[in-house]
């Protein structure tokens, strides 16, 4: 796959492989969330028409969820090390009032991901693990006979809870991408301007400068 080199003005933030991976997860999430909400609240049952009716929604939802989880597993291994919390991330999070009001002067320098992104990543890992385990438990077509009804009841409630937290997390994720201009371009076309990196992820910008002559890994 061709790798556009960094230009004087822009830096590659997400390679084509990572972008593809991200958008597979994203499409999986949207389909799983819509079909899941159709089964969660009667007021949203009409969403099942998008999937060909109630039975088809029931059939497709678990497979869509599995695709999302597997794709997320690849994405998570890619970004795992960059999402470990560091002391500066906690300082950044403590000054969340400055963050949400676009006052960045007093914030500590941010690495490849900021404290909010890291917390959200952790939340997604936990939610998807919960959704996977509880989802398998309530997948009646294949696993209905192996678990007691008590386990299935708890799994049903847990599945809805994890989905709620994940959906709210993704709403925040999507809004943050719109809010911080340039983020959507990073995840659609792969690059950010050096000014963007300086403003939002200065420590990462410094790291890329010190990375020397090493070339990006061919994907």
């Amino acid at each position: 796959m061709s790798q556009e080199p960094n230009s004087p003005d822009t830096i590659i933030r997400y390679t084509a492989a990572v972008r593809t991976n991200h958008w597979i997860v994203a499409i999986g999430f949207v389909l799983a969330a819509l079909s899941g909400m159709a089964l969660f609240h009667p007021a949203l049952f009409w969403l099942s028409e998008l999937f060909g009716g109630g039975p088809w929604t029931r059939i497709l939802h678990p497979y869509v969820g599995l695709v999302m989880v597997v794709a997320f597993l690849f994405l998570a291994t890619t970004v795992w090390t960059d999402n470990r919390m560091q002391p500066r991330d906690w300082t950044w999070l403590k000054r969340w009032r400055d963050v949400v009001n676009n006052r960045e002067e007093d914030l500590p320098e941010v690495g490849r991901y900021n404290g909010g992104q890291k917390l959200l990543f952790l939340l997604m890992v936990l939610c998807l693990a919960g959704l996977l385990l509880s989802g398998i438990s309530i997948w009646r077509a294949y696993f209905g006979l192996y678990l007691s009804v008590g386990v299935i009841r708890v799994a049903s409630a847990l599945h809805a809870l994890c989905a709620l937290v994940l959906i709210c997390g993704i709403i925040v994720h999507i809004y943050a991408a719109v809010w911080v201009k340039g983020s959507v371009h990073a995840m659609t076309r792969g690059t950010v301007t050096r000014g963007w990196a300086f403003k939002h992820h200065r420590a990462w910008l410094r790291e890329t400068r010190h990375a020397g002559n090493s070339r990006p890994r061919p994907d």
Partner: protein
Amino acid sequence: MPLQSLDIVRRSATTLPSPSVREPAAGAVAKLIDTTKCIGCKACQVACMEWNDLRDEIGTNVGGYQIPHDLTDKSWTLMRFAEYENPKGDLEWLIRKDGCMHCQDPGCLKACPSPGAIVQYSNGIVDFMEENCIGCGYCVTGCPFDIPRISKRDHKAYKCTLCSDRVAVGLEPACIKACPTGALVFGTKEDMRGHAAERVADLKSRGFEHAGLYDPSGVGGTHVMYVLHHADQPQLYNGLPHNPQVSPVVRLWKGLSKPTALGIMALTALAGFFHFIRVGRNEVTDADEAAAARLDGAAPSPATPPSQEKRT
């Protein structure tokens, strides 16, 4: 509109009232199963098969009387046989006709996500409308009596209908018709409670001091009731639950959590919208670009080495 139901008091996954002008003048119905009169002949099972045109697969004989071994999508009622040794050392053969209890507060209906797949008529019968069933099995999750079964063939849920088709035209359920000992009786719930009271008084006079009626209040009462010799120990009758109720977990999942979760999602989205209105987007300025260029050294040339993509 012929064949239209005008007597639906509850409909699954539906928030507004269903057509319900028609009310049974005589009140709700009930089936009374007198386990003290049951001889275990299974005529009720056969009658159920015949009226509903169900032929379950032939099972295997494991040396017991209970055939089939469990309720299935094609066996909507089943005589469960329990051998109980009482404190006096005598054997009691406790036979219980199992099947849907037609709860006044049905856990299956509460759990069902598909509008109109489960309904409760004003006469108390809880009925599955298989054409609306999506096969998710939530009714099984919601039922306190482990009654609904999902067909492996069509992935729809099935259970006893209390012969709603017969009752609607003034007939008694098929199992009642077939019972040779009068262990099964059918009528208004009020009458059945009265009949049960006579039976219980008779049993008590004959030494069954714990005889009683099983009409559990945890599910709002049921439209299938039992007369038991040991009403203090219903679990003796093949695990009939002592105080059945819709699980608190199911009530939470299908009750408060539904509007709360939608509200939280809507508020999260609204918070984003108003943040945009009040604070606006966070945009990179020319000053940022200039500062980035300074950080990068004098004048970045096109030969600037590409950055290392960390762990991509």
